């Protein structure tokens, strides 16, 4: 603990990031530039999220990290250990117990409370970048609320695929003002963006922080005749039988065998503990044994 300042970053840097976070919360959906620091991990591994987590963590917090819903991937484990080492905070895999959750590409299935913070890792914060390469121009478009281009992207989807094929990083309009990229979460998660918890988004390489305060209106963009649909695989979890959770598809052999399972590992384990069993699952106790 004495080898590092609390949560790795120096106090001045954390203050700078907190100012950006507060500004982001004050202007929901607006991308606040910040002086992103070099972190001891490569860009693309969550440097933005890590800096935001470092700035909001207190010694009393309980920290959880998920990567595509899972607590046990290399990336999640590394970041969790990083803060265990540099901040000495408690860590957990239970959504219920965590006060700060850093996530890559998912929102936990379980509703968050107003005493919880969700920190997103964001690769490309600019939703308009797909069609407009100029940063000067996209900032002007945000400033003047010129968002027609965002619908051009959705139009292209429908004209090419017959439906809005954008399945993740589905653009939203926050509190009727800023169009925002919700990071590459599946569009299944979009409705959950209206929540009780605080949501903070950090893009390290792009040096942007943005936020959604609790209970903020978040609307997924769509057309009148092609309304937004939060879709998922038409299946139940093969482990816990849940029909309301976002599923990963797993190829299990070389003969086309496959299984679907909750991408949120904590949610799946919790259900199995409660005795739910999916089509290919086994009771929880046996598994543990």
């Amino acid at each position, binding site marked *: 603990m004495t080898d590092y300042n609390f949560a790795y970053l120096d106090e001045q840097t954390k203050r700078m990031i907190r100012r950006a976070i507060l500004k982001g919360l004050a202007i929901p959906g607006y991308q606040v530039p910040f002086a992103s620091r070099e972190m001891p991990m490569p860009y693309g591994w969550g440097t933005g999220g890590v800096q935001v987590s470092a700035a909001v963590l207190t010694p009393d917090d309980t920290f959880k990290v998920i990567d595509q819903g899972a607590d046990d991937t290399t990336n999640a484990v590394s970041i969790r250990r990083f803060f265990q080492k540099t901040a000495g905070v408690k860590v957990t895999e239970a959504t219920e117990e965590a006060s700060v959750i850093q996530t890559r590409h998912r929102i936990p299935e379980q509703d968050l409370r107003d005493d919880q913070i969700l920190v997103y890792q964001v690769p490309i914060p600019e939703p308009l970048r797909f*069609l407009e390469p100029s940063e000067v121009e996209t900032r002007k478009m945000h400033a*003047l609320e*010129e968002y*027609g*281009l965002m*619908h*051009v992207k959705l*139009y*292209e989807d*429908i*004209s*090419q695929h017959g439906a809005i094929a954008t399945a993740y990083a589905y653009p939203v309009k926050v509190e009727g003002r800023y169009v925002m990229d919700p990071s590459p979460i599946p569009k299944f998660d979009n409705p959950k963006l209206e929540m009780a918890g605080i949501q903070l988004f950090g893009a390290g390489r792009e040096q942007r922080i943005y936020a959604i305060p609790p209970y903020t209106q978040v609307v997924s963009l769509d*057309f*009148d*005749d*092609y309304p937004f649909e939060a879709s998922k695989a038409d299946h139940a979890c093969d482990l816990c039988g849940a029909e309301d959770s976002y599923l990963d598809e797993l190829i299990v052999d070389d003969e086309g065998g496959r299984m679907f399972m909750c991408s949120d590992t904590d949610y799946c384990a919790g259900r199995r503990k409660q005795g739910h069993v999916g089509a290919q699952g086994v009771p929880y106790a046996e598994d543990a044994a």
Partner: protein
Amino acid sequence: MTPLLQVEDVAKFYGHRIGCTDVSFDLYPGEVMGIVGESGSGKSTLLNCLAGHLTPDRGAVRFDTRADGMRDTITMSEPERRMLSRTDWAFVHQHARDGLRMNVSAGGNVGERLMAVNARHYGDIRDKAIDWLGRVEITSDRIDDRPTQFSGGMQQRLQIARNLVTGPRLVFMDEPTGGLDVSVQARLLDLLRGLVREMNLSAIIVTHDLAVVRLLADRLMVMKDGHVIETGLTDQVLDDPQHAYTQLLVSSVLQV
């Protein structure tokens, strides 16, 4: 009748060099004005000043807005000017790739201006796109193709459809037929003439091609070294040029 556009003493300098200076004229609804001159005469600078792409160093460019009548577009706020440029104004670039999104389908290119003014019904947007592609002689089966798959003439027609879909009242054109084969040029000119008449468009066309202005423009402005040296009815300026430079310009055209 009030003019649609009032240009008063517009000047633009690049350091000590004159871009254009002392330019004044009125353009009325339904009028097509040509601006001719050789490269470097200031005609493109003037066009860009009028269309809001460049800020003039002096002068006023007043446009008869639908909501508030005559407004100086140079001093109005940027959001207002940008709104004008995607509703009441249109700009047809010489190079289609400056005026089109090359990685977006033809339908998306035409639909963009509609979506920019809050069209949110895919079916309606598509119907309008098909209608406009038809009006510029692009068949509906090309609607989902990207402009990169189009010929030069088609790209230019697509650019026109994309610009006119919101029913603008003033069209700026910068060498609209430049770089096209003569046969393709003729078709484009005929199309533009028809659209100008049907939509009662006003237009300002910059070109160095005197044949283009003879066919399209009612009035002509001749520029040299940043100055307007002669103006008048197009056929009068071409058939009875008064200024030495205009006489040289007209007599330099190859006859076929």
